[in-house]
Every structure is written in structure tokens, then in C-alpha cells.
């Protein structure tokens, strides 16, 4: 059955050329561009959330600042560090696929998945602490005495008296900060879960020599997705954790 023209022998060092492409470079560029178009749609998706965040933060800067002070800043710092490191290992995996180091690809992909899992574990423990403190928006949301005092101080009218309507709005927008926090980090965490699953599947596929030419194009495209998720976090960290 395996004539030379239909050979799928994978371990040749060069990628198979699919019949609808002119050459390997065009094939590579097309795959890359396909992932980039997907990432542009992802940028649009996340920028909708960033836009909502921008408007609400501009409406209630004090409530957002208070909300931000309840985030675990150093935990977030650690997680950013972990995620940036996972980007480095992913970049190494791509490099290994370019120079034909199969073991290197698998090793770096597993490291990347491991770092991604550490990120998610830390994030989950953060969520737990915040939910225990009553910061999960909805029926169980709870504004503590101390938070209420801070919000009252930010809700005075021109004569220095408490503006009840403004205080009520501030309490709502304090909750809105957590709505945006859980939604943005939650959607980001979902992307991480998808990314970790894909990275692990790729580690197996590379290990069993599924791809021709060390899967250079495939691993690079996977890398693009992983780095994009990293870039999103680079913006989320200062926006959510570091409001001063």
C-alpha cells in the first residue's frame, strides 16, 4: 500500500507537503497565519472585557482600588513569574523542533504543562481564599465593616455628608470589580486548561513521532497560542492586582 508518493513515513526530518500547497514555506506560513487570525479574534474577545473594565474603573476608581487591595499581590507576582517561565520553556520546545531535538521538545513541553498546572493550582487557592472571604459576586457577596468604612469615605457629597445613593453605587461597583476579576481571570484560566491539554497531547504526539519533520510547524503554532495566553496575563496582572 505504501508507495513512495503516498508515504507517510514521519521521521524524515522534513515535513510532508500537503497537495494544496506550493511548497513547505507556503504551508508553514499558512498554518502560522491561521493561528494568528484566531489570536486576533481572541484579542477582540479579551478587549471586550478590558473595555468593560475600563469603563467601570473610570466610573468608580475608589471601589476598584479597594477591590484591588484585597488581591494577593505577591501570589499574583509568583504566578506571573511562573507563566513567563513557561513561555521560555515553550520557546525552547519550538527551538528544539526547529533543530530536530525530539527529546528536547517532549521535555520542554512537559515542563511547560507542569508550570501551567502550578499556575492553575495557585490560582485555585487564590479563588478559595477570596470566596471564603465573601468576595464571590452574587448572593454570598459580603462587604465587610472595614470595606464599608472605606467606601463611605469615598461617598461624601460636597458638604462632607454621606451621600447614600453614591455609597450604594460604590458598594455595587466594589462588587463589579470582583465580577470582572473572576470573569477575566476565569476566562484566562480556561485558556490555560485548553493550553495545558493541547501541550500534553502534543508531547505524546511528538513522542510517538506522529508529525513529519519533528512537527516544527505544529509545535510553533501551539507555541503561538501559549504565548498569547501569557500576554493576556501580562495585562491582567497590573490591571487587577496592582491598582494603587
Amino acid at each position, binding site marked *: 500500500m505504501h508507495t513512495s508518493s503516498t508515504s507517510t513515513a514521519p521521521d524524515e526530518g522534513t515535513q510532508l507537503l500537503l497537495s494544496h500547497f506550493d*511548497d*513547505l*514555506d*507556503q504551508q*508553514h*506560513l499558512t498554518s*502560522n*497565519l491561521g493561528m*494568528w*487570525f484566531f*489570536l*486576533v479574534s481572541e*484579542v*477582540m474577545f479579551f*478587549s*471586550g472585557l*478590558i*473595555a468593560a473594565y*475600563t*469603563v467601570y474603573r*473610570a*466610573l468608580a476608581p475608589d471601589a476598584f482600588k479597594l477591590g484591588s487591595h484585597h488581591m494577593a*499581590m505577591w501570589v499574583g*507576582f509568583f504566578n*506571573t*513569574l511562573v507563566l*513567563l*517561565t513557561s*513561555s*521560555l520553556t*515553550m*520557546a*525552547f520546545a*519550538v*527551538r528544539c523542533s*526547529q*533543530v530536530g531535538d525530539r527529546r528536547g521538545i517532549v521535555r520542554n513541553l512537559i515542563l511547560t504543562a507542569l508550570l501551567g498546572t502550578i499556575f492553575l493550582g495557585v490560582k485555585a487557592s487564590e479563588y478559595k481564599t477570596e470566596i471564603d472571604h465573601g468576595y464571590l459576586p452574587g448572593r454570598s457577596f459580603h462587604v465587610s465593616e472595614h470595606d464599608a468604612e472605606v467606601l463611605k469615605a469615598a461617598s461624601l457629597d460636597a458638604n462632607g455628608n454621606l451621600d447614600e445613593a453614591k455609597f450604594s453605587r460604590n458598594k455595587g461597583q466594589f462588587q463589579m470589580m470582583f465580577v470582572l476579576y473572576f470573569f477575566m481571570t476565569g476566562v484566562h484560566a480556561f485558556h490555560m486548561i485548553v493550553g495545558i491539554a493541547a501541550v500534553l497531547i502534543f508531547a505524546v504526539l511528538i513522542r510517538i513521532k506522529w508529525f513529519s519533520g519533528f512537527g516544527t510547524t505544529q509545535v*510553533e503554532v501551539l*507555541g*503561538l497560542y501559549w*504565548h*498569547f495566553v*501569557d*500576554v493576556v496575563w*501580562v*495585562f491582567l*496582572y*497590573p*490591571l487587577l492586582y*496592582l*491598582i*494603587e
Partner: protein
Amino acid sequence: MAHTSHSHSQTNLAQTTDAHAQAHHVIEVRTYVLIYIALMLFLAATVAASFMPLGAFHLPVAMTIALIKAVLIVLFFMHVYYSAPLTWITAVGSLLWVGLLLAFLLSDYLARGWLHILGK
């Protein structure tokens, strides 16, 4: 006629070699590590900036640092620096999109109180 076809084939050849170089550019390990160190320094800088008394400049400073980090990741980790012009346009286009969205959105929200329209 012969001259034209000759120069044409040369252009083709140049483009192919160019595309070949783009598709197979292998970045040095050293470059990756340097970019990683730079990202770490910018991460430290963004945390340090949040402790500084910058007043209204906190957000612009934080966003500038985040943007620099994003550009470093996109250019080197995502290889856009070595990629085809079409990839460049796509990557820059997405940034342009966010910029447009935020600019028009803010021009609406920030300017709402400027005009005192009766009955508003």
C-alpha cells in the same frame, strides 16, 4: 523580453529564499534567555512602580511596562520579528483594534458630562 523574464525569475528566487529564511530562522538560546531576563526585570519594575507615589501616572506606567513586555513576547517568543509581512500586519492589526475600541469607548464615556443638555 528575455531580460524581463530573467529579472522576474530573480525576484521569485529572492522571495523564496526570503520566505525560506523566515520559516526556518532559529533564534539562539542566548537571545531567549536575555528576553526572559528582560521580562523578569520588567515584572519587578511593574511591582516596584505600584509602590511609588506616582499619583495619576500609576495606570499609564503600568500599562507601558505591560505593553513593552507584550511586545518582547510577541516579537521574540512568537517570532514575529522574523516573520513574513503578513504576520506583522495581522499582529499589529489586533493591537490597532484594541486601540480603536478603547479610544472610541472612552471618547464617549469621558465626554458625557461636557455638554449640559437640557433634560439629560
